[in-house]
């Protein structure tokens, strides 16, 4: 036993340092900061390998909320952003940290809640009406609370209702990603605002229903933004441009169009490259 354990340990430790990690030349790396929905829905698992094969770039995907993605862009710690928080996006472009903001795709947000629907919001056309009713009924609402694109959208809807939800005990912030927040909502039989892509991808796990959908305010638009190399010289601008061009290319847009159809019966995202933001949702 003694001999074998020594040999085992020796083998283990002696192979470790000799192994070299895959090293790729610095200029062939790009850092993509993106939202959790693109990763949790599995879309990036389809897009990134195709991009890598085509261009040889190694993409380091950092899937955080849109808020953190843009903070990384603003600090020059990412090369390209794929995000869905239009107001914040316009701001960083106006401040000169982001350039070439281009529309990529959209899907929509839905208000999900328990089947029993205690607050009786099912079928309400306007999201703000539904939110008001939730507040009146003191129905448990789970907010992302993480400055993500979804959180920003939720706050903008609350604003239209004139209710300040943070005052209520029925309003709870998870501080987690979309997938986990949906799980918390399902577990506690609460309501939440979710993007349809993540909802569909996780639907099999919980008993949450779509209660409100189709309001124009619930449109969820994704843009790609390159980080401005004039602000941050270390940014890999060639790689960023290559990725941005790739996601709006015809081929990728076709991939997006069909992504998820086989698994969920309907697409998770709708390609929009070349369209204007104002044209959507009409």
């Amino acid at each position, binding site marked *: 036993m003694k001999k074998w354990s020594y040999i085992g340990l020796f083998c283990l*430790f002696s192979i470790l340092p000799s192994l070299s*990690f895959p090293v790729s030349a610095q200029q062939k790396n790009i850092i993509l900061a993106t939202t959790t929905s693109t990763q*949790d829905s599995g879309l990036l698992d389809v897009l990134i390998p195709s991009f890598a094969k085509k261009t040889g770039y190694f993409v380091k995907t950092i899937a955080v909320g849109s808020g953190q993605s843009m903070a990384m862009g603003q600090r020059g710690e990412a090369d390209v952003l794929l995000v869905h928080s239009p107001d914040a996006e316009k701001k960083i472009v106006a401040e000169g940290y982001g350039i070439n903001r281009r529309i990529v795709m959209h899907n929509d947000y839905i208000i999900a809640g328990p089947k029993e629907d205690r607050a009786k919001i099912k079928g309400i056309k306007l999201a703000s009406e539904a939110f008001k009713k939730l507040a009146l009924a003191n129905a448990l609402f789970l907010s992302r609370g993480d400055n993500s694109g979804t959180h920003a959208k939720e706050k903008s809807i609350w604003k239209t209702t004139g209710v300040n939800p943070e005052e209520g005990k029925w309003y709870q912030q998870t501080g987690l*990603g979309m997938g986990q927040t949906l799980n918390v909502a399902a577990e506690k039989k609460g309501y939440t605002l979710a993007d349809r892509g993540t909802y569909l991808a996780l639907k099999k796990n919980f008993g949450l229903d779509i209660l409100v959908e189709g309001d124009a305010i619930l449109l969820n638009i994704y843009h790609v933004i390159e980080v401005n190399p004039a602000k941050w010289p*270390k940014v890999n601008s060639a790689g960023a441009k290559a990725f941005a061009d790739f996601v709006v290319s015809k081929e990728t847009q076709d991939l997006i169009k069909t992504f998820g159809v086989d698994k969920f019966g309907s697409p998770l995202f709708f390609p929009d490259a070349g369209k204007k933001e104002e044209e959507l949702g009409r």
Partner: protein
Amino acid sequence: MDLILEGIKKAFWLLITLDPEVMEITFLSLQISGTATLISLLIGVSTGTLIALSMFPGKKIVASLVNTGMGLPPVVVGLFVTIFLWRNGPLGFLGILYTPTAMILAQAVIATPIVMGITLAAIQHLPQKLRLQILALGATRFQMVWILVKEAKLPLLAGVMAGFGGVISEVGASIMVGGNIKGYSRVLTTATVMETSRGNFDIAIALGIILLVLAFSINFIITQIQQRERPR
């Protein structure tokens, strides 16, 4: 309950079929945490022994700092390592953020105080007279230190296990400095977090089981070595 059974089934399936992605993730976990433990051993044992054997003013403060470091929260380490390694940070020129190397660095920072603290306690616990006796027998200073370290082997191996166990199971720092990049810096813990948020609970449970089996196997090997030396 069904879910847990489903997860166990999935774990067996992934292991039996040698699922390439799971194998890669498992191997990378071992590689990163093993290397980090190795680094923490080199620094922790040498510095810990040095502190234990030398007399200097403020020794108690240093020892307290080391002992506090044993409970260093991984997310705090992750945060600081990230800020230092940012392109525009003090160590940005290295260009290693979001690489396995950065993960080794962060994990070594977490494990080193653990190994150092246990070494410190182990060496100090040896009888004071042992040192004098070894020196009286004509050993050089270096030989003396070596014999002391060998004498303290039992607790030192416990230190190795504590350090390795601390980093292989750690997720906060790894996800921050490694980025959980598929096929590159995704390890068992970060993959478990991601699969959970994707709602793939069966795979998440399977990864968790693989992690436990891995940790058990390593500790079993080290314990074999340790217990062989048990004083009779």
